[in-house]
């Protein structure tokens, strides 16, 4: 029996696209048309719009910082909720300016799906392409395209078709296949929650109908066990290793191997406070006790003995630089993958590309700047457990730290000893 909508996991989608193409307005429109806005909130928006001398501005639903409203842009990512009879949604709004790309990536990395907005009048712009690249890098498979502001192009089908053709060519080059494309006006509401009377030539679903068809990102239950150890506690004299199962299942009595160390152990018990469990699955935060109580520390990953993660210290990877301060050859970094953290260096920047134009900037480059993508060889100070992103997402993605900050996100293609 299927659980009621309120008890099923929510679908999280991020709204991306170039600055001023209508992302925040769309959020306001969705909340407004699904009657998710409290009267006091509408009143507050009316008041704030008035103070700044604008008409009622739907984007204020989510653009909450004073600076966001006076500059009429989104600076930071934010999340809000709405529900339909079928299910609940989390909307992640992401800023469109290049200077706020770090916030955009932060927002998009938490999404199951993306709504990709293009201003029908302005067409495909720099951040349109960059955001598409980021979605591809993050592995977001479900993308819905909205051609917005159709009211400004006289609701013309020809313009809609032309943009779709241009966009699908670009999407194909980065491996994204859109689930559909919808002509809308977020400002007026056409094809958002209600079919448009202005575009009788469009007979496809509205945005709300399309959202209902999106799938949750599947929990990788069918993959082999990956249990990255977060910590080791002693509770009432017993050692318990804790963590979240990132893939597969674990049960009491099972033999596992910890990588990168290679140490084997048998699971004695599965521990969850106030619960009586003998097994657990992907997504659950649990504890394990081990027979013989071997000293397993944070950073080890429990795997099935016959299907362990690969271990190595040389990674072939793509990294997306987020920081305003460029990376320069020779700098040392720290790599964090699941609960592992090791020092690392970039041995070679084989190719450097622009994340918007996808043009090759340089081969064997010496530095990487914000929004550039480096196809690199990374060398870690000691061996780590890692896998290609396509095969095992949780051990195939990592961040790079420099000083106190997360400076880049990366995707593993290959790992070698």
């Amino acid at each position, binding site marked *: 029996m299927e659980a009621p909508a309120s008890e099923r*996991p929510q679908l999280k989608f991020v709204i991306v696209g170039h600055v001023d193409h209508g992302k925040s307005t769309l959020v306001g429109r969705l909340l407004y048309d699904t009657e998710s806005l409290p009267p006091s909130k509408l009143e507050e928006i009316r008041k704030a719009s008035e103070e700044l001398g604008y008409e009622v501005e739907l984007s204020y639903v989510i653009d909450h910082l004073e600076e966001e409203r006076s500059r009429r842009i989104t600076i930071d990512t*934010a999340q*809000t909720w709405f529900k339909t009879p079928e299910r609940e949604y989390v909307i992640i709004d992401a800023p469109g300016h290049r200077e706020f790309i770090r916030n955009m*990536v932060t927002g998009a990395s938490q999404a199951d799906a993306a709504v990709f907005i293009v201003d029908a009048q302005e067409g495909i712009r720099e951040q349109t392409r960059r955001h598409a690249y980021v979605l591809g890098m993050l592995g977001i498979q479900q993308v819905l395209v909205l051609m917005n502001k159709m009211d400004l192009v006289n609701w013309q089908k020809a313009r809609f078709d032309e943009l779709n053709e241009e966009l699908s060519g670009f999407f194909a080059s980065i491996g994204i296949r859109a689930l559909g494309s919808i002509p809308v006006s977020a400002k007026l509401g056409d094809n958002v929650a209600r079919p448009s009377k202005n575009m009788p030539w469009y007979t496809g679903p509205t945005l709300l109908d399309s959202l209902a068809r999106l799938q949750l990102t599947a929990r990788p239950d069918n993959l082999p066990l990956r249990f990255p150890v977060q910590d080791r506690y002693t509770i009432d004299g017993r050692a318990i290793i804790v963590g979240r199962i990132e893939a597969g299942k674990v049960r009491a009595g099972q033999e596992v191997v910890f990588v990168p160390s290679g140490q084997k152990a048998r699971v004695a018990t599965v521990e969850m406070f106030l619960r009586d469990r003998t097994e657990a699955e992907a997504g659950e935060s649990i504890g394990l006790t081990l027979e013989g109580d071997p000293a397993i520390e944070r950073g080890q990953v429990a795997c099935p003995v016959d299907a362990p993660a690969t271990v190595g210290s040389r990674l072939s990877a793509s990294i997306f630089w987020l920081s305003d301060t460029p990376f320069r050859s020779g700098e040392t970094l720290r790599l964090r993958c699941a609960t592992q953290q090791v020092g690392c260096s970039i041995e070679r920047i084989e190719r450097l590309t622009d994340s918007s134009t996808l043009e090759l900037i340089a081969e064997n480059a010496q530095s990487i700047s914000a929004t550039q993508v480096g196809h690199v060889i990374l060398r870690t100070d000691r061996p780590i457990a890692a896998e290609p992103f396509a095969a095992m997402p949780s051990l195939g993605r990592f961040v790079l*730290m420099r*000083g106190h900050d997360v400076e880049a996100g990366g995707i593993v293609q290959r790992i070698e000893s």
Partner: protein
Amino acid sequence: MALTKLDELESKSIFIIREAYHQFPKLGMLWSIGKDSTTLLWLCRKAFFGHIPFPIIHIDTTYKFADIYRFRDEYAKKWGLRLIVGRNEAAIAQGMSPKVSKLGCCGALKTEALKQLIEREGFDALLLGIRRDEHGIRAKERYFSPRDKNFQWDYQNQPAELWDQYKNSYAEGTHARVHPMLHWTELDIWRYIRRENIPITSLYFARNGKRLRSIGCECCCQPVPSNASTVDEIIQELSTTTEAERAGRAQDKESVYTMQKLRAMGYM
């Protein structure tokens, strides 16, 4: 068996609590004794199998409801909590109260009291039960959020946070606010309270046609009209209401950006 929404929310929160404990040698949890932080406390008990290894902090303005103090002392004892109470004694002695100034009172008795406590106890991070859906400005928060020595929140320049890799390195003098329940909604909280049977102060339940939906100080909280006198009835009420959760909280009302300013100065 597929995880339910509540399972997913709980699992992520426990993961974050354990990350914070691993990372910060001097961690504490702020407990206002309301529904959110009591749920956070419950999640901490789960994360550490009933043995929370860090202190639980109550910032006491002295203007709290009587049942808050009773509930605090009863469960601090029952759950074996290491309770620390923080009060700005100097400001209280000088007669600071909401009658003097609402913003000033929040600043002195909450924010300043917390500052004094952090300095005295040397905390490097605090767990807080705030949620994105409470207020537009909280929707912009990160799970791990740095605060400088003057308590300032640099909301224009927040750290990147992706793939559950939270900021784990901080400049000297900075402390971190950790928000393990950022992704929960008000309804999620009540559904989880029902599922787990978490004890909660009776102030949330309707008496004489009114109940408190969000609890702060006695003087600055207005009850909302309601007949919901059980957890089930509250869930029923919230499933249909369109009124904002903090509609009864004075701090949110002085001006549109009061909350942004309070938070930038270190308000919780």
